């Protein structure tokens, strides 16, 4: 397998805390990959309208780039990138007529017929590395940390691109492999409010409040997620959400890759906890997973 890494727009700046620890962890675990040298935005949301092929161009162009760089598989970490790329790939594979139209429109690019496989980082960890090997690689087990796994929507729906069945619980497996305890979390596969936080902020906040409330009820120490949109709604905006809704309390949020980096004993600066806010750093210091001096 020749594995390419598709970063996605947000991971180079605002979600650097999603990317940095992830890539360092792959190096640490001995997974070889090559970051794509040329790529564009994935499109972020998959177009659901049958004749709206122009919005399939962005994801398919990235798949062409991956093929041009001789990758047979690309891995993404952002849930929205994963969902959009994987569904566009499926469209190209399944629908010959739409594939031809897309190829004809992109007459400056080589034809593409779905040769590249799109996988999410969590699937790569589970299927290529394996929970057993990951557990063995953990040098700084997150003992006594109760973690609520937040899948959101795009990792698990629709079914044709879901990285996990309802019962398989990939994030729970991941949390357990790090030595932490997965919390029973009723909102694990719910919507975070998504882009409604921009379009209709009040409604977006109400939605986020429901997820944070469920996290509170799960008595988790922390919430982990894999999507910069979810992190914005549940992390960045959490102070506003908690202030606007009675009975909520704050819960630190992390990208799952940050806890992976900490558990593997990587330099905690790589985990970019500075981008998560002070509570996220304090919790890990309190639990003695990282040294206070490094934050």
């Amino acid at each position, binding site marked *: 397998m020749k594995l390419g890494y598709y970063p996605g727009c947000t991971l180079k700046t605002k979600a650097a805390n999603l990317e940095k620890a992830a890539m360092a962890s792959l190096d640490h675990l001995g997974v070889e990959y090559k970051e794509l040298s040329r790529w564009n935005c994935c*499109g972020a949301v998959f177009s*659901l*309208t049958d004749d709206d092929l122009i919005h399939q161009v962005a994801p398919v162009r990235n798949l062409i780039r991956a093929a041009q760089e001789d990758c047979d598989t690309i891995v993404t970490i952002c849930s929205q990138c994963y969902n959009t790329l994987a569904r566009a790939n499926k469209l190209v594979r399944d629908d010959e007529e739409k594939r031809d139209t897309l190829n004809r429109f992109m007459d400056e690019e080589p034809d593409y017929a779905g040769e590249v496989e799109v996988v999410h980082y969590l699937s790569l960890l589970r299927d290529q590395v394996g929970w057993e090997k990951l557990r063995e690689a953990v040098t700084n087990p997150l003992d006594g940390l109760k973690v609520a796994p937040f899948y959101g929507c795009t990792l698990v729906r629709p079914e044709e691109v879901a990285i996990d069945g309802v019962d398989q619980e990939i994030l729970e497996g991941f949390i357990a492999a790090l030595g932490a305890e997965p919390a029973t979390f009723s909102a694990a596969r719910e919507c975070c409010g998504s*882009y409604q936080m921009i*379009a209709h902020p009040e409604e977006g906040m109400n939605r986020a409040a429901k997820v944070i409330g469920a996290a509170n009820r799960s008595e988790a120490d922390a919430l982990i997620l894999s999507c910069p949109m979810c992190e914005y709604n549940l992390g960045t905006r959490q102070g506003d959400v908690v202030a606007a809704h009675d009975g909520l309390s704050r819960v630190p949020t992390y990208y799952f890759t940050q806890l992976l980096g900490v558990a593997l004993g990587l330099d905690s600066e790589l985990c970019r906890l500075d981008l998560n806010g002070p509570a996220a750093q304090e919790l890990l210091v309190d639990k003695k997973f990282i040294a206070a001096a490094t934050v």
Partner: protein
Amino acid sequence: MASIPSPIHPENLKAVNKIAELSGQNVHECMQCGTCSAVCPMVESMGFTTRMGIHYLQFGEIEPVIKAQIGEYCASCHTCVVRCPRGIDVPKVFEAVRQLVLRTNTDLIKPQEIPKDTMAEAPQIAFVSTFRKLTS
């Protein structure tokens, strides 16, 4: 697609066929159980429920569905798709309604009116999503 019940006004029939064409879904498959509305995370913000939205569309009434902003609030989380006992891809139906609006060069959000602090703070994918879903 299944035959359309006769009481539908010919103009409305055209519109409902357009929805079927854009979404690939047959709203007449819906048996009005309301499960989609029960699981919808944004239903409280809509003018009426997704079930009622489908019901209007069964009669070719698109205008009330547009006014109820169902397509505007649906964030395509697909929770309803998983639960629908009739296998209808509900977000596709309401995305088609929204597309009919956007295709008249109507914007449901004005990018230049988003607060500058938000533009600086929120992740890039938030804006790509918003503009794809809500601008023409």
